[in-house]
């Protein structure tokens, strides 16, 4: 196959055997999936719900990716990059689903790269700065313990696409949670410094744990399709108690971080950290809106 210039050749998505690298010319990850809306399910609400869960995964993945080339050890760099890739995959599927059902016709790239901070629906927990390794691990444990409890229930959703995405995610988030839990035990039950860092990590993240369990109006509007967040608390608390007991760490008692006029991450009101994260994540796509990669 011949091209007028090298850039054209690099960007060609379907030139068969001669592709220069994997992952160019991404297409819709839900391509060919039966995407019809189940009867009686409100498309706008389902879209908003998929956006929430997709944004959680996207922002969490972006934070983890920041550790690539600067993780404490090569093995953990691989682990964190792999976990980020799983979450990015979940985000791609969920954002694609959101764009299909909310009648706006936006694709995953438009949703990820061309929305402003106030339009993001992720919980504030995932946007916290990376911090030290104890903070990364504590945040990953909290996030994956909560998300696993959520995805396991969501695998029974009335929306078959959401159910399938969730069922696939259960297998992945199970080992994300185990990875974080095993590290927290090693740190908590390790040296004086590692114990202190692990406890600090948990204490720092804790004020944003409460938000994970606030049932949102969108969840109430989707009975049988969405999972009310409040239902996840018991399972989450048990897992955290089990890990903390093994790690000789105290379960923090801090009260939840205040909302702004009753609104939090799910309503587009975020911490000051999200804007910086988005600026980095979106700058390339916004500078070159017609680019293919």
């Amino acid at each position, binding site marked *: 196959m011949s091209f007028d210039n090298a850039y054209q050749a690099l960007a060609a998505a379907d030139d068969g055997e001669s592709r220069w690298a994997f992952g160019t010319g991404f297409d819709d*990850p839900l391509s*060919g999936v039966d995407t019809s809306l189940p009867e009686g399910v409100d498309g706008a609400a389902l879209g908003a719900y998929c956006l929430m869960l997709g944004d959680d995964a996207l922002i969490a993945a972006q934070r983890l990716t920041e550790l690539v080339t600067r993780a404490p050890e090569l093995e953990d760099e691989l682990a964190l990059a792999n976990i980020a890739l799983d979450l990015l995959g979940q985000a791609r599927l969920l954002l694609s689903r959101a764009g299909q059902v909310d009648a706006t016709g936006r694709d995953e790239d438009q949703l990820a790269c061309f929305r402003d901070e106030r339009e993001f629906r992720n919980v504030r927990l995932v946007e916290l700065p990376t911090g030290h390794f104890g903070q990364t691990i504590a945040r990953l444990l909290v996030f994956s313990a909560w998300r696993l409890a959520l995805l396991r229930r969501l695998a029974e959703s009335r929306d*078959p696409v959401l159910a399938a995405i969730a069922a696939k995610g259960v297998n*992945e988030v199970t080992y994300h949670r185990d990875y974080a839990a095993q590290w927290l035990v090693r740190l908590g039950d390790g040296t004086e410094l590692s114990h202190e860092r692990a406890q600090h990590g948990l204490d720092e993240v804790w004020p944003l744990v409460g938000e994970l369990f606030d049932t949102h109006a969108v969840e109430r509007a989707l009975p049988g399709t969405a999972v009310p967040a409040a239902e996840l608390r018991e399972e989450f608390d048990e897992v955290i108690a089990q890990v903390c007991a*093994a790690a000789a760490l105290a379960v923090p008692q801090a009260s939840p971080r205040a909302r702004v006029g009753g609104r939090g991450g799910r309503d587009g009101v975020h911490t000051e950290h999200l804007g910086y994260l988005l600026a980095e994540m979106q700058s390339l796509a916004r500078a070159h809106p017609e680019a293919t990669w």
Partner: protein
Amino acid sequence: MVTTTGPGLARAREVAEHVTDPELPVLTLADLGVLREVELSGETVIVSITPTYSGCPALREMRADVENRLRAAGFADVEVRTVLDPPWSTDWITAEGRRKLAEYGIAPPGSAPQRAPGPVPLTLQAPPTRVDCPRCGSPETEEVSRFGATACKALRRCRSCREPFEHIKEI
């Protein structure tokens, strides 16, 4: 009309089955258990494939490869569908696929964990699993890292021949 037998279909299936995994070129999509179905609807060949991991970047390549190979084999209309449900499991890697993996130097997976209904139990200490060294056959091997160069592989080391090797982890 969708048909699942016939000479045209048999050829299409033959072609689709022999498309290889871009990351593990010794394995075909059939060996890997990623190829779910090949059907013929009128003149259109419909191929259903399933992603291994949610974020697996090779899926897009597989889709394109299937399409290109079928076109090259004379099938003008090709549709590649993604199937998400039920989720892919390493149990779907065929016996032939396992043999090829070991020959290539990658330890094949054991049985995937069976999950009981209810909360997923926490694993604070990975249970000892027997993985034989693909080079010397020794069962004396240890895990170096649960995560490797791709989402599906863990890194191990053989205590007998001292060589490091990769292992497809059970999922």
